[in-house]
C-alpha cells in the first residue's frame, strides 16, 4: 500500500465552530415554508456566508470557462436544439434506445412512477440475493425516495459520492444537484464523521476527512453485491449511456460488483453519439468551470460474466411533455448553474426548499411533482433572469417561474398573505398614477420609516436584505421626465 500524501493539519479551533443550521422541512401533506426555512439558515451567519461564497465561486469559474470558448453561445443553441429535436421525437428515440440496449445484452425495464422504479429494482435485487449496494449520485433516485424504500426492505445502500455520503450519514437531504453538502462547513463534516465513521472529532481538515471517508468506504465497495448509477445522457443510436463524475465513484459502483443497475429518466435521451460532444463540452464548464469531469464513462454492454439492467423512469415526465409552458424544462442536464447564480439560492441554502430539486431548477420542477407542497417555491425568486442567462440548454427558467405563479394562482394554491399583497400590488401596478404615487411614498418611506415598518413579517425579503438608498435624482420616472421626455408628452400614460 502506498503512503497517502502527507496530511497537513488545518483544523479550526473547536470554539470557533458554529452549529449546523437545520431548516424545517414540511411534513407529509404540508406546505414547505421556504421563507421560514431560509430564515433558519440565515440564523447561522458563518454558514450563510460560507455557502454564498462557495456557490458564487462556482458561478465565477463557470464564467471564466465559458469565456475561453469562442463558440460558447453557439453550443448553448445547439444543445437546446438537440434537446428540442429529441423531445419532439422522444417516443421514437426511446424505443430505439431500448432496442439497441437489449441488443447489447442489457435488460431494459420501464417504470411509470417512483413506486414502479423502486419495486422493479427491488425485484432485480431479490432475484440476485442482493443485500449490500453501492451507488453513485442520482437525482432521479432521490426523486423516487429510493434509499428510504430500500431501508424499509432491509437492503443496505451506501452512497459513494463524498458529498452525498456526508448527507446520508447525517440523515439529511442533498441541498444542491452537483455538490450535495455545499451548505455544510468542514466542522459539520468532522462532527458527522466522528459520530458515524469514527474520525477524530477535533480534526476538521478537508484532506483528513476525505481520506477518512475513502478508507471507510473502500471495504464497502469491495464487499457490495450490486452497484447502481444514474445517467447523464442516454444515446439512442448506440443504446449506451453516459455517466459523469469527478471521484470515479460511478465507475467503481458499476465495475466492481457483477451486477450493475442504472436508473435513467426518459428525458435523458439524445439521438446520436456525436451529440455528446456538445453536451460534454457544456456540462462541467457550466457546473464547476472545469473543461470536463475527471471521468466521463460510456456504458454499452455488461462486462464479461456481469449483468446490466436499465430502468427507464417516467415519473411525471410524459405528462410534463404535454404542458405547453413547461415542457422545455425537460431539457435540463442538472448542471446546477442556475442555482449557483441565483441570489435567493445563494442566500437561503438548498435545504430551505425542502425538495429534491432546489434553486431555480427546483422552482419549475417541484410544483409539477406536488403543487400544494411546493406552492411557495416559485416565489423564491427575484425574476432577475440570471438563471436563464447561464442555462446551457437555454431553458427560459425565469419565465417558467413566473408562469408557475400564474398556474398556482389559478389553482388557488397561493398562501393568504401572498395573495393579499399581490392583489394590492396588482391594483397599483395596473394604474400608472397610483403606481407613481406609491413609488414616491415608498421612497419617502424608505427615508423616514423605522426598520420595523420595512422589515415586517409580510415582507419575507426585507428580512434578509438591505434596501438600497434612495437615489438623489428621485425615481426613474422623475429622471426620465426631466432628461428625456418631450414636455408635451410628460403626462401621457397618467390617464
Amino acid at each position, binding site marked *: 500500500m*502506498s*503512503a*497517502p*500524501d502527507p496530511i497537513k493539519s488545518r483544523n479550526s479551533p473547536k470554539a470557533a465552530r458554529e452549529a449546523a443550521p437545520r431548516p424545517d422541512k414540511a411534513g407529509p401533506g404540508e406546505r414547505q415554508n421556504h421563507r421560514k426555512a431560509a430564515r433558519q439558515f440565515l440564523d447561522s451567519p458563518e454558514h450563510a456566508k460560507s455557502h454564498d461564497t*462557495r456557490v458564487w465561486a462556482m458561478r465565477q469559474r463557470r464564467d471564466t470557462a465559458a469565456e475561453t470558448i*469562442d*463558440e460558447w453561445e*453557439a*453550443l448553448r443553441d445547439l444543445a437546446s*436544439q438537440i434537446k*428540442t*429535436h429529441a*423531445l*419532439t*421525437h*422522444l417516443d421514437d428515440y*426511446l424505443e430505439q434506445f431500448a432496442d439497441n440496449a437489449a441488443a447489447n445484452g442489457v435488460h431494459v425495464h420501464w417504470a411509470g412512477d417512483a413506486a414502479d422504479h423502486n419495486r422493479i429494482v427491488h425485484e432485480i435485487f431479490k432475484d440476485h440475493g442482493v443485500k449490500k449496494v453501492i451507488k453513485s449520485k442520482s437525482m432521479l433516485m432521490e426523486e423516487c425516495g429510493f434509499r428510504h424504500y430500500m431501508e424499509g426492505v432491509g437492503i443496505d445502500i451506501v452512497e*459513494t*459520492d463524498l458529498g452525498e455520503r456526508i448527507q446520508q450519514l447525517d440523515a439529511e437531504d442533498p441541498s444542491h444537484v452537483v*455538490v*450535495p453538502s*455545499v451548505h455544510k462547513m*468542514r466542522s459539520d*463534516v468532522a462532527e458527522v464523521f466522528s459520530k458515524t465513521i469514527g474520525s477524530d472529532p477535533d480534526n476538521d481538515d*478537508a484532506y483528513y*476527512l*476525505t*481520506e477518512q471517508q*475513502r478508507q471507510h468506504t*473502500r471495504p464497502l465497495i469491495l464487499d457490495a453485491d450490486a452497484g447502481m448509477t444514474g445517467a447523464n445522457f442516454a444515446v439512442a443510436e448506440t443504446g449506451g449511456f453516459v455517466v459523469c463524475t*469527478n*471521484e*470515479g465513484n460511478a*465507475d*467503481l459502483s*458499476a*465495475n466492481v460488483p457483477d451486477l450493475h443497475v442504472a436508473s435513467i429518466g*426518459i428525458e435523458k435521451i439524445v439521438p446520436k*453519439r456525436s451529440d*455528446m*460532444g*456538445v453536451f*460534454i*463540452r457544456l456540462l462541467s464548464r457550466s457546473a464547476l468551470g472545469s*473543461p*470536463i*469531469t*475527471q*471521468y*466521463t*464513462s*460510456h456504458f*454499452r*454492454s455488461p462486462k*464479461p460474466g456481469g449483468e446490466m439492467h436499465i430502468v427507464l423512469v*417516467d415519473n411525471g415526465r*410524459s405528462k410534463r*411533455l*404535454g404542458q405547453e409552458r413547461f*415542457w422545455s424544462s425537460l431539457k435540463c442536464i442538472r448542471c446546477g448553474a442556475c442555482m449557483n447564480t441565483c441570489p435567493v439560492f445563494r442566500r437561503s441554502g438548498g435545504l430551505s426548499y425542502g425538495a429534491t430539486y432546489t434553486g431555480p431548477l427546483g422552482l419549475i420542477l417541484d410544483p409539477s411533482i406536488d403543487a400544494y407542497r411546493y406552492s411557495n417555491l416559485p416565489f423564491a425568486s427575484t425574476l432577475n433572469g440570471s438563471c436563464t442567462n447561464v442555462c446551457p440548454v437555454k431553458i427560459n427558467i425565469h419565465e417558467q417561474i413566473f408562469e408557475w405563479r400564474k398556474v398556482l394562482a389559478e389553482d388557488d394554491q397561493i398562501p393568504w398573505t401572498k395573495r393579499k399583497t399581490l392583489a394590492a400590488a396588482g391594483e397599483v401596478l395596473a394604474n400608472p398614477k397610483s403606481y407613481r404615487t406609491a413609488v414616491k411614498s415608498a421612497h419617502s418611506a424608505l427615508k423616514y420609516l423605522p426598520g420595523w415598518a420595512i422589515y415586517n413579517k409580510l415582507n419575507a425579503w426585507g428580512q434578509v436584505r438591505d434596501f438600497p438608498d434612495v437615489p438623489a435624482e428621485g425615481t426613474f420616472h422623475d429622471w426620465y421626465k426631466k432628461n428625456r421626455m418631450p414636455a408635451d408628452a410628460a403626462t401621457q400614460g397618467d390617464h
Partner: protein
Amino acid sequence: MRGKNDILADIRRNKPGFAAPAPHVPYYDDDYPRDTDGLVERFVTTLEKMGGVWCAPTADETLEDTMRRVFAQREIEATALVSNVPEITGNRRLRAGDAARPLHDVDVAVLRARFGVAETGSVCFTERELIVNAIGYLAQHLIVLLDPRTIVTNLHRAYQRDDYQNARYTVFHTGPSATADIEGVLVRGAQGVRSLTIIPAHGSA
C-alpha cells in the same frame, strides 16, 4: 403499474405538436494546431490544470526508467504493479473476466490509452486496455502510455472516432479522482486513483 406501451402512448399523445429538426454540429477546431507538438502543448496545459502529470522520457531513459523516476518523485511504493502494456514488466497480470475484488491492493497500474483529447487533457480507454475495468479505479496510481500522434483536437473529434463501436465500456480519464465536496477544498484521490501520470510513448492500443 404503467409499462412500456403506456409510457410510449402518453409520450405520443403529449409531445409538442411540432417536429424540430436535428441541428448540424460543426467541429469547431479550426483554431487548433495541426501539428503533434502543438496539440501536445495544448493537451499538457489542460492535463496539468486537471491534476494530471506529463512526464516525457529523457534521451537516455527507457520507459521503465521514466516510470521509476515518477515513483521516486511522487514517493510511490509500487509493491503490487499491474502492467497491461508490453513495454513495462509488472508483477501482477490481468486476464479478461478476472474478478475485480482481488485488485484491491494494487498500488500502480500501467495502461496504454487509445487516444488523447487536447481540449480537455483526457485519455481514452476501453475494456480492451483496462482488461478488468475496475483496475482504472481500484489502483492507487495510474501510469498511462500515450502516443502523442493520437491526440485529437477536441471532444467533437473524439466522439467521431470508432473506438466505441464495439466496446462495452469506453471512458475518458482526465487527471486523477478528485473532490471538492468539503468546503470547496480540492482533494485528489477521492474514491479512485490518487495520481495519473502520462508518459508519451509511440505505440498503439
